[in-house]
């Protein structure tokens, strides 16, 4: 009988580059930067790593296909290296691969590294991924990421009869809070506070999303080295940060093709979060989750995700957000490192970047951002579009808790 991942794997060490427009840094250098920090933090040598998982999403503009870029980038000694790609869940998928290999007892120490170099495209925003010869390119609209996610807002406002102006205000507060958090994080891409008025007055990108409703597009890399609790303890490690849950849910076409989804939330997130709480032994997430890093690619994504994670009630996120429930000093601080919005979003690295913050917080190493005695940290990625996507949820906490 399968028993899940809870407390079978612990994080030995992590690393994360500064995210941002790293004009002077190539992907191979970004990988080395994250890898060196993780190696030092874990206190292991390169040769102790037995297998590795590499996450990169946009091979069109990035490091290219296969696991070769990682193996060459950090000079791994011909060990098994696997490249994974699953939209914005890519970084978390790399972590999942590394954890499952350790949990299966196949390896003692494994590595997960995600990297994305997005600022070599020549324009802002994410690169397009349609190659022309795909099944859907012949009929889907010419979309952008903001355009696909923006539709959550029109649907949410219609379903809950929220005036768009009020919804826009709550969405603005999502960004205001992340900017405040990011402003005190030295590794964050955007480090400037903004006001609700500034956010609401920003130029429209895709109705109703304005510029400040959209996360940045960044270069960056993040890395984790994992092992079993027994090995970590034998190495003399204390305050072990343990993996409590790793869940993925992927759309099967029901949202976009069947008739019972209103376009206002994520079916996958609602499913994955339920499974994650069960795997981690969380009964009441609103009370038991201490902190979260969710996929705030757009402010409206974060807003509706609060409901799909069962932290806010259905239709209740607007009120919670405006009351500061998710602020750094709120009940469940969200995007304490600045989030995708301000820390940045190099796609393949983002899932690992979120875990990096949870790991630092649980070890009491988050500096100015440190939360008092956090217990369960949740990370969430959402890749694709609201009507067709990949959702990943991870929960980490103290070993044995």
């Amino acid at each position: 009988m399968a028993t899940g991942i809870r407390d079978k794997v612990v994080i030995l060490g992590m690393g994360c580059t500064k995210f941002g427009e790293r004009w002077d840094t190539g992907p191979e250098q970004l990988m080395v930067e994250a890898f060196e920090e993780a190696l030092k933090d874990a206190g292991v040598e390169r040769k102790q790593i037995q297998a590795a998982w590499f996450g990169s999403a946009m091979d069109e503009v990035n490091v290219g296909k296969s696991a070769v870029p990682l193996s060459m980038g950090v000079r791994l000694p011909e060990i098994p290296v696997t490249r994974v790609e699953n939209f914005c869940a890519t970084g978390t998928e790399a972590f999942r691969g590394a954890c499952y290999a350790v949990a299966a007892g196949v390896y003692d120490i494994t590595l997960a590294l995600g990297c994305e170099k997005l600022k070599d495209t020549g324009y802002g925003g994410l690169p397009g991924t349609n190659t022309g010869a795909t099944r859907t390119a012949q009929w889907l609209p010419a979309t952008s990421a903001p355009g696909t996610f923006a539709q959550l807002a029109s649907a949410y406002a219609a379903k809950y009869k929220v005036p768009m102006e009020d919804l826009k205000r709550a969405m603005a507060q999502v960004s205001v809070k992340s900017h405040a958090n990011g402003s005190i994080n030295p590794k964050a891409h955007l480090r400037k506070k903004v006001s609700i008025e500034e956010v609401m007055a920003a130029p429209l990108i895709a109705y109703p999303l304005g510029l400040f409703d959209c996360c940045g597009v960044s270069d960056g890399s993040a890395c984790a080295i994992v092992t079993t609790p027994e090995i970590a303890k034998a190495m003399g490690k204390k305050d072990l940060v343990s993996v409590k849950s790793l869940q993925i849910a992927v759309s099967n076409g029901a949202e976009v093709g069947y008739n019972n989804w209103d376009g206002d939330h994520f079916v996958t997130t609602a499913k994955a979060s339920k499974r994650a709480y069960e795997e981690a032994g969380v009964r009441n997430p609103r009370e038991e989750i201490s902190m979260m890093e969710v996929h705030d690619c757009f402010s409206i994504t974060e807003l509706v995700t609060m409901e799909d994670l069962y932290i806010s009630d259905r239709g209740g996120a607007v009120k919670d957000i405006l009351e500061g429930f998710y602020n750094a000093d709120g009940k469940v601080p969200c995007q304490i490192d600045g989030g995708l919005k301000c820390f940045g979003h190099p796609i393949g690295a983002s899932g690992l970047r979120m875990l990096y913050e949870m790991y630092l917080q649980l070890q009491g190493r988050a500096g100015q951002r440190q939360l008092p005695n956090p217990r369960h940290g949740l990370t969430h990625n959402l890749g694709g579009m609201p009507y067709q996507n990949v959702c990943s949820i991870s929960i980490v906490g103290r070993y044995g808790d």
Partner: protein
Amino acid sequence: MIGITAFGGYIPRLRLSRKSIVQHIGWLNPAIAGGAQGERSMCNFDEDSLTMAVAAALDCLVGQNKQGVDSLYLASTTLPFADRLNAGIVSTALNLRDDIVTADFGSTQRAGTTALIAGLQAIKSGDKKKVLVTASDKRETKAASPYEMWFGDGAASVLLSDENVIAEFKGSHTVSLDFVDHYRGSLKQYDYNWEERWIRDEGYAKIVPQAIRGLMAKLEITMADVDKLIFPCFIKREHAGIAKALGATPEKVVDNMHEVCGETGVAHPLAMLVSTLEAAKPGERIIVAGYGQGCEALYFQVTDAIQDLPPRAGIRGSLASKETTDNYMKFLKWRNLLLTEAGIRGEAPTQHPLTAMWRQRKQLLGLVGGKCRKCGTPQFPKTDICVNPECRTAHTQDDYEFATVPATVKTFTGDNLAASVNPPNIYGMVQFQGGGRLVADFTDCKLADVKVGMPVKMSFRIHAEDKERGFTGYFWRAVPIV
């Protein structure tokens, strides 16, 4: 009795104020001010001759059993493909049967009436039971050309049969003359025009009467036996003059639609005919003539059955449903007369995979999805396994047409980032009545008018153009009904 059993029309919703053309570019050619009355019809950025032909044909087929259509004739001089049967695209878009005759008629402005006569002959011979004739034109002109003022975009369609005839065909007469008032070389985009005075005096004024007098002589009728006289001539004064010379009193002369639309090329005689039939009473007798390298004229008499034809938009309905613009720059941009910056984002590859398009031809051109035999769920696209989470049965889907199913807006946005020549790019999810949904482009609308829950209808449009390779891809878009 053989003749017309149904008709339909389509004029694009956008109209360009002719004054705005003069205001913007009259300085370069002040003579164009002479034609600056009213407005001309103007294709949206996602419309061409083919999409208008489909729209007119759909309008014509309202209330008709389209499975009975056994021939489809498409007439135009501005079709997107020189070597790929354009009528075949229209036939697939309409989801007609595979075992029918499809043919393109072109190369002359009278191709519309030529296709009409050919269709009537096919019915008369007894070889065909239902022939759908659709004519459409979107003629390109250079900026500041007088023809830019005279021309409009549009399409018209008639269904021919020997049953339920609403306008009986009595006879036709053709005069073929290689009179070259203008020409368009086979690899050229624009017409080369000779002097208007010669076109007027030696062309229209002599050749149109020759064909119409020939028809009347052949059928032994006089202008007293004609209630409506239809022939194209973009020079308004000459149009009236020719009618007068033929003995037609002004109330018999069908307006050339200059002020409200402009001349729609090959479609024009049919558009004027459809517009006339829309208001025709039983017993009315109509002559319609097409002009170009000669002239051909047909004689019809309206029957009682016209009163039973279900309502349709037609030419008059399309003309009434309009948005007038004075944005001449938009016209220039969409007619590829203005080189603009698209940014690096606009450099995405646009090659169309012909293999995949063949496999998905019904889906892409006909908006045909599937309907599960087990649970009854309509769905798009049609797949091997039912999309209903409670069903998921394999291999149970029959073809299901979404093109004319009423739908509503489920979600939407107006995207300023996505590459578009008509920003913001408006798109969203559309929910069909009775089930099935689709993420679709929206068109013929303004962002401010779009609301969740509002009704939409589907419209066949250009989806993407591969200008480098000369390919136009089509799909269906949602038109919000404001």
